[in-house]
């Protein structure tokens, strides 16, 4: 089954890199949606079927931690699998991300880092 993916990052280059890496990973990727901040991401989630959300932390308007909280609070998105992809290096903040149920991938990442995180969060055997 193809994975429909939402990539949320305020950098268009980083979104393109993530999509390129996903497509190189051997995973079956279906539709890919882009959002530049948390508010745009929520709009996509309200209107499209998304299996996996990849989320940056530092973004304008609504940051990644606020977006994760909103995803968890909304009945329509509460079970969504999420991966945070960020330069964040603060242990307490990374712990906060993991406590929300999201995987964490640190920038810069290798294709293997991202592929393995997707498999873990989707429950696919490595």
């Amino acid at each position, binding site marked *: 089954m193809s994975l429909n993916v939402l990539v949320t990052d305020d950098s268009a280059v980083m979104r393109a890199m993530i999509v390129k890496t996903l497509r190189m990973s051997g995973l079956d990727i279906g539709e890919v949606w882009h959002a530049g901040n948390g508010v745009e991401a929520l709009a996509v989630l309200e209107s499209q079927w998304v299996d996996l959300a990849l989320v940056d932390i530092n973004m304008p308007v609504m940051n990644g931690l606020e977006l994760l909280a909103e995803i968890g609070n909304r009945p329509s998105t509460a079970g969504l699998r999420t991966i945070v992809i960020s330069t964040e290096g*603060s242990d307490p903040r990374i712990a906060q991300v993991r406590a929300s149920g999201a995987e964490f991938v640190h920038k810069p990442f290798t294709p293997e880092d991202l592929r393995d995180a997707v498999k873990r969060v989707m429950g696919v055997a490595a």
Partner: protein
Amino acid sequence: MTDHTATLGDVTALTLETLCFFCPEVEVSELQDAATVDGTMSVRFEGPLTGRVVVRLCGGLLPLFASNMLGDVDGDYHMQRDALAEVTNVICGNLMPLIGGAEAAFVLRAPQPVIDLPGAAPHPTALVRFGLEESGRVDVMLYFDPT
């Protein structure tokens, strides 16, 4: 060389290798040294320490930066500038826990283009330079705000 210089060098080299697929050279040749500036980006950090990380790319490498990151797509000028901004952001983000500690929380502001290097702090706390390709160069500077 200060501890911050060594740390900045390590973070910069890792970022250039992993994100941009460059092999940064510690020894800068005369040709690389004379390279003209393509663009400069700055990311401000705020937390237990405040200041900025500035990345200056030289030698006409901006399109190669973007194509290496995006995969054979040079992108337009905005995408190329965004590529340099993202590199600056990643270097700054990775540097913060190494100089501020893993428990420290920093806020990184959005990358901003720099026309002239910050006049208020003409001497960076740390400066590293790497040769890139045959005739390119990257300079990375760490500034702390005056206390």
